[in-house]
């Protein structure tokens, strides 16, 4: 759809002929996808259509049955603990659904894990950076001394985002960042991602259910239907004939969210 005029853009994630499945159930049937530098790409689809599986296979947590995946110019199909993948992993950050913070460490220590592992910074600088990242994601400085179990769901996600950003990645993967948040927190989180994306020049790969998030921050949307991808902007997708996409964007929730856009 929007492909031809964007051909010259810098492709950061390239998926070709991807097949994913479990047992004899195929989730993705030879799908292709390009993600361009500096864009926010939203991935939607019904429950069980393999949104998270797509994300996980791009970051190398799941090995696909077939196909090629490249991120930042390197294949992610190799051993996830190989040196090549290490280099790649330093250049992206991942926010998992529940934050996936290490429960035995404080929030500040969580943020410092990649710094400690991959840089030779002094403890003072690491403390300063942790505090700066906390401020960036809108957490108060004393949140750094707390353990993940002492945080609310929304704070955990913010802390998880701070950890994902600790190495200043080029590429950010978000797995349902606003799921389980109240609408106000979800809006704030959307704003936060938008603002960070602008100021840090991030490329964001975003899996979500939340139509408000899609409207607020995505440049393009990928819909997973019938094991294939439909790619386009919101206004393009609203004209789609596919029953699921139609339902999704013109259901009560979808209409409400989109009406606020047109208003």
């Amino acid at each position, binding site marked *: 759809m929007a492909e031809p005029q964007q051909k010259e853009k810098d492709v950061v994630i390239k998926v070709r002929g991807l097949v994913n499945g479990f047992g004899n159930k195929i989730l993705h049937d030879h799908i292709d996808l390009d993600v361009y530098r500096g864009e926010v790409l939203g991935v939607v689809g019904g429950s069980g259509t393999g949104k998270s599986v797509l994300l996980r296979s791009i970051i190398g947590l799941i090995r696909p049955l077939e196909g090629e995946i490249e991120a930042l110019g390197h294949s992610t199909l190799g051993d996830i603990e190989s*040196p090549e993948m290490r280099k790649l992993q330093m250049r992206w950050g991942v926010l998992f659904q529940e934050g996936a913070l290490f429960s035995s460490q404080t929030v500040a220590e969580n943020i410092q894990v990649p710094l400690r592992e*991959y840089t030779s*910074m002094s403890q003072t*600088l690491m403390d300063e950076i942790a505090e700066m990242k906390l401020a*960036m994601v809108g957490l108060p400085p004393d949140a750094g001394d707390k353990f993940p179990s002492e945080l609310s769901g929304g704070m955990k996600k913010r802390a998880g985002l701070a950890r994902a950003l600790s190495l200043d990645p080029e590429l950010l993967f978000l797995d349902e960042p606003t799921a389980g948040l109240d609408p106000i927190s979800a809006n704030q989180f959307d704003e936060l991602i938008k603002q960070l994306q602008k100021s840090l020049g991030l490329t964001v790969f975003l899996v979500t259910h939340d139509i408000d998030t899609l409207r607020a921050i995505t440049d393009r949307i990928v819909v997973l239907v019938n094991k294939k991808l439909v790619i386009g902007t919101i206004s393009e997708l609203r004209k789609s004939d596919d029953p699921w996409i139609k339902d999704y964007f013109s259901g009560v929730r979808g209409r409400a969210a989109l009406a606020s856009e047109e208003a």
Partner: protein
Amino acid sequence: MTSIETVSDEPEAWFKLDREGGTLSLGGAWTIAESARLDRELGSLDLAGKGDVSIDASKISRLDSAGAWLVLRTRRALEAAGSKVGTFAIPDLYKPLFETLDQERQSEPHKLRIPTGLRGRLYKIGRGTIHAYHQTISMLGYLGRVTVETGEAIASPGHKMRVAAMFHQVEETGINALPIVGLLAFLIGVVLAYQGADQLKRFGAEVFTINLLGVGVLREIGGLITAIIVAGRSGSAFTAQIGSMRVNEEIDAMQTMGLNTIDTLVLPRIIGLVIALPLLTFYSDIMGLIGGAFMCYFQLGITIPVFMRQLAEAVTVNTMLVGLIKAPVFALVIALVGCYEGFQVERNAASVGMLTTRSVVEGIFLVIVMDAAFSVMFSVLGI
């Protein structure tokens, strides 16, 4: 180790403060890969008494938030040292980043909540003591509650006892434990007979190995080893089962449906184990004696009939009963601790593992304390 500093191929970052101290110029890639080095070098920069300084960062080719933080920090250090920072030139591309960072880090530096050093140690000891105190109080409260609920369950005639759940627990904790308890008791019998025979041989009193074995296994070892295995096997299972139900909000669901959790979860486990453990102890006693008899036959050449005759002289039914009477008490302690710790689980994954470990340690600790208390009591009573 792979480090981000070795893989980076960015142009090197640099900074230069000109001799008069009028301009601080920055250039290159101010990124996280360079930040450890820049941090060290900026630290050795003498910033005092520079007067008015202008910062020229326009030659920076790449900037990320770590680099921006270093620039910002240097500017603040200059201001703190009494300099006035006049112009501050940065590439337009990175203006939003600076604005984001500058407005957000206005908050006061906060104090660390947990003290370090000797004070930290004292803090930990104090916190541990208070925690142990609260733990004891709350466990006693729990014992009280279970006692009351049990009393009510027995007293009220119309009360539905959860018989099926109870016998399921007897099967889980008793019948399924038979192989491991049997094998270990047998081996303990073998070891006890072997070591006893070795020592008693010096006095020509090998035959008394059987006395040692009989009294040892029936009074103490049989019951103790069984209780310890069960504490490790079933006490931990109780904590893990109830704990994961808590994580999963199943306990909350039960409570909102008006189901009494003591009644549905705790009593079947306690009563089940109180039934199972004495039976298991009896079985363990027999297996221990068989192990001893086996060793006596091969090591000392004592035939089974001789073994039986000597055993009958060495022990009475009372010896065994003294051992068995302790089993229900051990069972109560293990089940109580197991269930109690299960209810202490908080809604996070680490909590289940931590409390399961604690339940096993506390269970075994209390079993041995109880055993010692019984020994003192029996010796006072002259049994």
